């Protein structure tokens, strides 16, 4: 390189280096490490990251046409990690420079829809103002639209949302989340939403093996561990729990572990004498075996099955 001439615009851009530098790699690695399973979701996020990186490189050469729409819908059963991924998404979009602040505002119908005439618009606008520069996450979005009540104020909130999603595409990203079948209904009756949302991401259910790993991860985060017997019991527990009603993937597992910790604490408390650190941080087989799931669920559910 000649030092006297001013450096011309680099004719090439190293996407790999860009990827490492922008901190996107860190987020994606974190996503891989922290979230078990969810392969299609991760693939989709990777694609989105690639698109934004390429878009950024194009902009540098003056090739960019317009900012891509990034409004998304997350569909999946309860407890499949929709909120967790949304949080990660906000961080990712921030590092890619797509949103300015990268915070996540998580709302449900109650935060958007008012109680009486003229109450909805200010309420929705308030939330949108708070979400500017970040990501607005609307959980169980289908509750916004109630087809059986035509005087419901949800329609007003939807109208304002659509308007902002269109006009302020640079300022915020809207993520709608909910169960697959009901979201499908919601989109069917609100075609405006479907056309404004470019990315539909489906969250698959976890396999038994994945839930087992999730359980261990949750416990490790709280400085607990499973004894070998408890690990086997946990695997059986997951298989049994899945067959029972109101199964909510990772959330069911978290609740089960909370109850197991309760039993473990009770066991340690009723045993006499000093306890070791290891005993304090180990969940035994009995703590899990004591669950009602092994008896076939809650009392009234067992009766119904008989």
């Amino acid at each position, binding site marked *: 390189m000649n030092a006297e001439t001013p450096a011309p615009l680099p004719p090439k851009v190293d996407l790999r280096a860009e990827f490492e530098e922008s901190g996107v790699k860190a987020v994606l690695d974190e996503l891989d490490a922290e979230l078990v399973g969810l392969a299609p979701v991760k693939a989709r996020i990777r694609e989105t990251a690639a698109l934004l990186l390429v878009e950024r490189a194009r902009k540098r050469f003056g090739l960019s046409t317009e900012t891509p729409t990034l409004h998304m819908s997350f569909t999946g059963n309860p407890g499949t990690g929709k909120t967790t991924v949304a949080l990660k998404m906000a961080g990712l979009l921030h590092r890619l420079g797509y949103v300015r602040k990268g915070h996540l505002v998580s709302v449900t119908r109650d935060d958007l829809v008012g109680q009486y005439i003229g109450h909805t618009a200010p309420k929705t606008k308030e939330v949108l103002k708070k979400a500017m*520069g970040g990501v607005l996450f609307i959980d169980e979005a289908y509750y916004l639209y109630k087809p059986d009540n035509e005087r419901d104020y949800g329609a007003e909130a939807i109208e304002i949302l659509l308007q902002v999603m269109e006009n302020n595409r640079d300022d915020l990203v809207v993520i709608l989340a909910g169960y697959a079948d009901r979201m499908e209904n919601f989109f069917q009756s609100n075609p405006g939403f479907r056309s404004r949302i470019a990315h539909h991401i489906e969250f698959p259910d976890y396999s038994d093996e994945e839930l087992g790993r999730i359980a261990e991860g949750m416990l490790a985060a709280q400085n607990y561990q499973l004894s070998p017997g408890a690990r086997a019991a946990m695997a059986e527990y997951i298989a049994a729990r899945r067959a029972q009603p109101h199964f909510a993937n990772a959330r069911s597992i978290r609740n089960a572990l909370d109850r197991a910790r309760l039993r473990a604490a009770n066991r340690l408390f009723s045993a006499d004498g000093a306890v070791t650190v290891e005993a304090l941080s180990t969940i035994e087989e009995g703590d899990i075996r004591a669950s009602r799931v092994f008896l076939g669920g809650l009392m009234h559910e067992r009766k119904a099955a008989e």
Partner: protein
Amino acid sequence: MRITQGCFSFLPDLTDEQISAQVEYCLSKGWAIGIEYTDDPHPRNTYWEMWGNPMFDLKDAKGVMLELADCRKAHGDSYIRFNAFDSTRGFETVTMSFIVNRPKVEPRIRMVRQEVDGRSQRYSFETVR
């Protein structure tokens, strides 16, 4: 007559970009922005009309700028100002205030003399359109 109240009032009018940058600064300090408007810029007219509630918990200036756009639409020919409220305990007051919109023709402020108590003079000011 150009009214000089609050920050930046001796400078040329701020552009939207500059206003937005000032709002970013306020938000970075954790201050809440309130929008107020009036048609009477008399220095003793301290309490202007509020345009909605002060905006707490905002992260980005865009939210404030959207409200400003709405306020301008409704009261384009009035004075509009931003008040930045610092809720830190011990302060709990407006810490920064600046005008973001002026009417096309600004009113003048005229001094009025009044004779009281024999030959004593009393001075006051009034806005004249």
